[in-house]
């Protein structure tokens, strides 16, 4: 009996405190009466039903009261409330927008069925330090026959197409794909069908059109399926429309079957991307183990595969680079810091206001409101404020995400667009509620703890506890701002270092575009070189063109960046027969002059370096150094094991940064006269601004071939600048976040001091009356403020040292713990804090002792 009693009393705790206080005893008594007269089971069933219905009702009742009260308070202090809501709105909007990107890139699975089972099957060569290399068609075929760990494997090759016939000719990036690819990815054609296994054999004139191109050029016309189009001057039947998700691999718009002609392939031609779908239940480790066995077997069968192995990567590893991941997480952390600073600042504002409301709170406490009740009411108030702010923030985030999508540079993210989805909304709502609780907790707990007598007696005596809390909050704000500003300083210097990086060529005054004369009409080893020769002659005749050249891949462009292993014969610092991976390009004579790459030794290519002559090459300085040290490289030879050809070095040129601004790689050039790629970059050096020459350049191309489109027309400066997009964006965003943080933190310091001066008016008045001089008073106040500031800045510096390693992959040309940056930021923030102290300090020095002492 007493035990049942006790249990009921525990259950009563579910009701709001005031209801329990008012009726708890009666209810217990009533329970006791019933328990005495009725069977226990029925009593407990009734009690359970009663609790389920009435607890939420009573709780909601109290909550509604608190809410009404909170809304009234908010209405009564519109300026204060607006300031808090705006701060929350800005912080939530920035955080939500940033999280939208993180969610889309890092958290959301790729747009394929069971994407966790998708892996890239890459080749690797530890001896050449190639951990993740393309696969060859023959190896792909062997793997496909031998593997048990995969449902299916599919290959993707990269190519480009000229689409002509219907309207203006256009050039597109495209893919050659295994018929199995759609199955592997688990996606279906939007219309029509995918390729059949029979179409893997050479001869099938079929194609799929990407959804994007279908929409843009064909207005989603369903009758396109079955129609014949002209690709690279060859008639081809469109059999289906490929979903947009398929262009994750190369931004492709046109797909043809990857035909396999074993006779024409060699195993060392690493040109395709292989995707595989693991069988259900097979782990990556198990599959890797199987692949290691397969690779070992192949190395025994095919001597050229001796040093090659298989490396499996998840799609996530393949498509999200660690650098992008770090950049996004750093940005998310930065924007999170801004939110924390905003919370601390609002908490400080609320603490200051709690002083103003001391009387009100004291009166309510005296009238019997319980502490819990007060705490809860103050929290409802702060959460209400943050919910209004959060709503504004979500609207702001919708707008910000739209702006992000509109201004997102292509190829920065592996996905075309980011969207606000349910996860993002849940994040924003959760963040808003947590924000309200966090910034409301300090003032609420303080108010609920305060001594009623003390409060009622004095109108301004805030205990030392609260002063400490406020100073601690201000110091924390400054600490976070210090970390952000150091991060911003490092990223801005990284960006400047990249801008100042020696490119090795002159990027201004260069117009570039791509051409892809169809190999059917322009075979790559005779007609195509002649076509480019004729084009360059025509371009050179144009007034304002200083020089022109073609290359299989200009620096920072979208051409072919191909790497092959090379070995040298004869004396070398390297052990004999060491293959070294070297980037190679095919270039026309005059390429180095056009790009302003210095020719350091030997000669440039000439039109006579064609197939009838001995094979020659020009190497970059780094390549020469690698193979021959400081010896003269002219006349030395390089052997390419891939096709057993040997090239004689005829010249040495300067090193060029060609893919990323932060690294230079050894390079090697072949002359164009003997062979070109199906897709080539054309670079034109002009006297006038490059863009003004575009119409006449286009006309010259069309005079040679009216069906040949100019693709990816850019100035070289645009290429270089877009390669620095990610560092520029990181630096700009963190810079903005840091500025906001510093501003809020300065306001925080100012607020704490202004409040403290206000509190000490009497004391300061007394000091002045007793003969303290104005500068003494200023020193007193500044000392208090700078004490807080230096603790904050010091804590920030320590935190930044601890976090330094986290952004090491994002910085270039500067140490992540660069002492100069740290010292500079600390000095700058000290100055900002000093400025924030000066206003309240001056006010303190002007306190009129008579007025101050008369008060109260």
């Amino acid at each position: 009996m007493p035990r049942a009693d006790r249990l009921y009393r525990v259950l009563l705790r579910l009701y709001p405190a005031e209801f329990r206080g008012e009726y708890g005893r009666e209810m217990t008594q009533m329970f006791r009466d019933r328990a005495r007269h009725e069977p226990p089971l029925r009593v407990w069933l009734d009690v359970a039903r009663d609790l389920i219905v009435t607890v939420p009702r009573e709780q909601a009742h109290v909550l509604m009261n608190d809410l009404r009260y909170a809304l009234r308070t908010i209405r009564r202090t519109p300026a204060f409330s607006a300031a808090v809501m705006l701060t929350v709105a800005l912080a939530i909007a920035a955080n939500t927008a940033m999280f939208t990107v993180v969610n889309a890139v890092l958290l959301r699975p790729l747009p394929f069925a069971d994407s966790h089972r998708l892996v890239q099957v890459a080749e690797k060569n530890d001896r050449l330090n190639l951990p993740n290399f393309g696969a060859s068609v023959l190896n792909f075929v062997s793997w496909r026959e031998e593997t048990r760990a995969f449902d299916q494997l599919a290959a993707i090759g990269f190519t480009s197409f000229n689409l002509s016939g219907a309207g203006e000719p256009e050039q597109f990036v495209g893919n050659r794909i295994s018929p199995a690819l759609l199955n592997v990815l688990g996606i279906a054609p939007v219309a029509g069908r995918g390729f059949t296994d029979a179409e893997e054999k050479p001869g099938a004139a079929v194609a799929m059109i990407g959804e994007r191109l279908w929409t843009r050029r064909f207005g989603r016309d369903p009758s396109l399926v079955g129609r014949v189009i002209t690709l690279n001057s060859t008639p081809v039947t469109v059999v289906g429309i490929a979903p947009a998700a398929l262009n994750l691999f190369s931004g492709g718009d046109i797909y043809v079957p990857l035909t396999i002609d074993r006779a024409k392939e060699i195993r060392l031609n690493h040109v395709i991307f292989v995707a595989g779908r693991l069988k259900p239940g097979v782990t990556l480790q198990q599959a890797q183990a199987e692949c290691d066995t397969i690779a070992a077997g192949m190395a025994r069968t095919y001597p050229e595969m001796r040093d090659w192995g298989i490396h499996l990567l998840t799609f996530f590893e393949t498509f999200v680079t660690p650098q992008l991941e770090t950049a996004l997480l750093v940005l998310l952390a930065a924007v999170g810091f801004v939110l924390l600073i905003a919370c601390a600042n609002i908490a400080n504002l609320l603490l200051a206001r709690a002083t103003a409301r001391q009387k009100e709170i004291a009166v309510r406490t005296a009238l019997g409101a319980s502490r819990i009740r007060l705490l809860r009411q103050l929290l409802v108030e702060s959460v209400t404020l943050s919910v209004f702010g959060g709503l504004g923030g979500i609207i702001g985030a919708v707008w910000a995400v739209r702006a992000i999508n509109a201004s997102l540079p292509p190829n920065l993210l592996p996905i075309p667009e980011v969207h606000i989805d349910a996860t993002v909304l849940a994040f924003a709502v959760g963040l808003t509620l947590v924000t309200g609780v966090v910034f409301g907790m300090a003032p609420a707990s303080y108010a609920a703890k305060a001594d009623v007598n003390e409060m009622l007696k004095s109108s301004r005596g805030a205990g030392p506890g609260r002063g400490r809390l406020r100073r601690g909050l201000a110091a924390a704000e400054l600490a976070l701002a210090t970390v952000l500003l150091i991060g911003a300083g490092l990223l801005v210097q990284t960006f400047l270092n990249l801008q100042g990086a020696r490119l090795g060529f002159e990027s201004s005054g260069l117009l570039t575009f791509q051409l892809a004369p169809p190999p059917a009409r322009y075979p790559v080893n005779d007609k195509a070189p002649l076509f480019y020769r004729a084009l360059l002659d025509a371009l050179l005749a144009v007034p304002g063109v200083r020089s022109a050249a073609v290359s299989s891949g200009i620096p920072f462009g979208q051409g072919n960046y191909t790497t092959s292993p090379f070995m040298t014969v004869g004396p070398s610092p390297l052990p004999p027969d060491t293959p070294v991976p070297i980037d190679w390009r095919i270039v026309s004579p005059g390429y180095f002059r056009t790009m302003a790459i210095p020719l350091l030794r030997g000669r440039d290519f000439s039109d006579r370096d064609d197939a009838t002559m001995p094979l020659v090459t020009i190497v970059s300085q780094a390549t020469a150094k690698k193979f021959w040290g400081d010896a003269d490289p002219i006349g030395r030879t390089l052997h390419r094991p891939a096709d057993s050809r040997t090239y004689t070095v005829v010249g040495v040129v300067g090193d060029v940064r060609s893919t990323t601004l932060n690294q230079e790689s050894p390079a090697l050039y072949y002359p164009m006269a003997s062979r070109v790629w199906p897709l080539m970059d054309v670079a034109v050096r002009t006297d006038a601004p490059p863009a003004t020459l575009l119409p006449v350049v286009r006309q010259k191309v069309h005079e040679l071939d009216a069906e040949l489109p100019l693709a990816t027309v850019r100035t070289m400066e645009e290429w270089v600048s877009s390669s620095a997009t990610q560092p520029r964006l990181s630096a700009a965003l963190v810079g903005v976040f840091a500025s906001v943080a510093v501003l809020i933190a300065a306001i925080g310091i100012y607020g704490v001091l202004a409040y403290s001066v206000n509190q000490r008016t009497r004391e300061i008045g007394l000091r002045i009356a007793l003969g303290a001089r104005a500068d003494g008073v200023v020193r007193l106040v500044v000392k208090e403020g700078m004490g807080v500031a230096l603790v904050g800045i010091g804590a920030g510096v320590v935190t930044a040292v601890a976090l330094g390693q986290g952004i090491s992959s994002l910085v270039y040309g500067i140490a992540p713990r660069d002492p100069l940056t740290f010292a500079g930021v600390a000095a700058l923030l000290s100055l900002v804090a000093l400025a924030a102290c000066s206003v309240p300090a001056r006010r303190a020095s002007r306190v009129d002792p008579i007025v101050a002492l008369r008060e109260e």
Partner: protein
Amino acid sequence: MSAPLPVLHILVALADGERHGYAIMQDVVARTDGGVRLGPGTLYGSIKRMLHDGLIEELDERPDSDDDDVRRRYYRITPRGRRIAKEEIGHLATLVRHARAAGLVPTR
């Protein structure tokens, strides 16, 4: 105004005299042959709101303390409570009449 059923039951229970919580509940049980059993939360939640709305009031003195030695709170109906009870019961009676006319005869 339309009062919830527990409120009407309490008003009816208090119509012929002051009662404490448990007595109200017993009265309702007796009247409804055990059909309605007001739980403590329901009862006191309703009492709280009825006090606030001025339908009932709490007695200062205890009319009978012979029941047991526990201090109990007693409630009595106010004139306003009585008026509103009449109105509400009137509405219900009308509703019952209409229901009978429409062939909805309660089976008991």
